[in-house]
């Protein structure tokens, strides 16, 4: 049962609980009118300490389409956070007004501090370069709809794997399915963090390769997950400039890939996917964004205990 729980990382829910959410999302996609009053009288608080378009809009749209309402801030300078208020005090105050909260914060573990300070459900909408579990729900729903499931996939992850929180969350989530293997394509400086390698991949004996050559990896992949090199995670500009254009997916590279390979991207993109790829039927990143709203609708209903 998901009612009253927080969702801070993919492992917070079992694969069975995730499947319940996917089934509910399927029903919402099939018949959205049926859900327009599901959350009537409920309030969602959005606490975005960092910029966001997709995640914030998709949560707000999700709640509004369920008949609920939204309060919140989209940058900390417009709240008492600017006066130095702690995360713990902020969430305890918000819990006086709202039924659940969604938080995005630049510091890793911030939503966990929030969840420990309240009985209200808290959802991690991205914490620094650490995790982004609702993006993972979006990614999983997209893969499930296109591939029918998660077993027996070769998943390529490309770009910034060190600070790419969506990558860390996705690897964690997919590690629980059968016969999934990973090919991680990145420069040496942006490889996955040690805890992902050690605690998730090695501990669960999941096959993986770490490579720098994108062209060689492409023909092997069922799913290609592209990521942006994130300027905001670098402490110095020179490192960012040196690494940012290392991998660009274009039409020529797409010719190397399988006919049924999916291309995903959590967005926003800068130039790592050329716009010429957008018209390729394998490019699913905008459809992925739309699925994000539906899975968030299912998540909100689950955490509020609405049947």
């Amino acid at each position, binding site marked *: 049962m998901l009612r009253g729980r927080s969702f801070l990382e993919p492992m917070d829910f079992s694969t069975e609980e995730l499947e319940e959410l996917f089934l509910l999302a399927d029903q919402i996609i099939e018949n959205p009118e049926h859900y327009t009053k599901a959350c009537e009288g409920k309030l969602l608080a959005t606490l975005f300490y960092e910029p966001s378009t997709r995640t914030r809009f998709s949560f707000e749209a999700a709640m509004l389409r369920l008949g609920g309402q939204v309060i919140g801030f989209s940058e900390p300078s417009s709240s008492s956070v600017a006066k130095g208020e*702690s*995360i*713990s005090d902020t969430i305890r105050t918000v819990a006086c007004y709202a039924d659940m909260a969604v938080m995005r*914060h*630049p*510091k*890793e*573990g*911030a939503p*966990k*501090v929030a969840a420990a300070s309240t009985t209200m459900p808290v959802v991690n909408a991205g*914490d*620094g*370069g*650490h995790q982004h579990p609702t993006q993972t729900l979006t990614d999983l729903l997209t893969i499930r709809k296109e591939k029918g499931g998660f077993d027996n996939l070769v998943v390529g992850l490309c770009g910034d794997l060190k600070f790419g929180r969506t990558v860390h969350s996705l690897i964690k989530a997919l590690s629980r399915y059968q016969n999934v293997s990973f090919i991680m394509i990145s420069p040496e400086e942006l490889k996955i*963090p*040690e*805890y992902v390698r*050690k*605690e998730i991949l090695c501990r669960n004996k999941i096959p993986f390769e770490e490579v720098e050559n994108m062209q060689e990896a492409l023909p092997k992949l069922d799913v290609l997950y592209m990521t942006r090199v994130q300027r905001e995670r670098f402490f110095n500009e020179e490192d960012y400039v040196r690494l940012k254009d290392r991998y660009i997916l274009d039409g020529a590279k797409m010719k190397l890939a399988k006919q049924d390979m999916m291309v995903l991207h959590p967005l926003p993109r800068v130039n790592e996917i050329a716009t010429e790829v957008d018209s390729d039927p394998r490019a699913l990143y905008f459809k992925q964004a739309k699925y994000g709203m539906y899975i968030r609708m299912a998540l909100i209903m689950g955490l509020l205990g609405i049947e």
Partner: protein
Amino acid sequence: MVVIDSIKTGIVIDHITAGLGMKILEYLDIDTTKDTVALIMHAVSSKYGRKDVVKIENVSDIDLAALGIIDPKVTVNYIEDHIIREKVNITVPERVVNIIKCNNPRCVTSVEQGAPQIFHLIDRENREYRCEYCDEIISMKGGYSNEIIHKQWFDR
């Protein structure tokens, strides 16, 4: 040979890895203006070749979890009336609170006052711990002085 008297009541920390006695004493933050303390360094040990030993008079309670992180092979002897009342073999703790400090500048503990520093053991042999919040891995084997929270820092 250096000879130190036995203590009447207090604690003897024995089988400390040679050279670590000072660090352990520093961590325990014993008030040396009040309590009698003896630190023996590089004593001969039949078991380990060389060892340090710390004797503290009139102290009955010390942080065993911190000892388990710094030097898990020590033995703690609780002394009463010159007799060993209890002998405790330290183990590496599974979970520690406010002993190790996360050194990841992106971790929420770097900004949130009041958030306890919580770490979970992930590799006993290498004494590797994972931060509860950011998942950063710290190894407590070898040099760790920047990662250990001194009790006096925490009490501020």
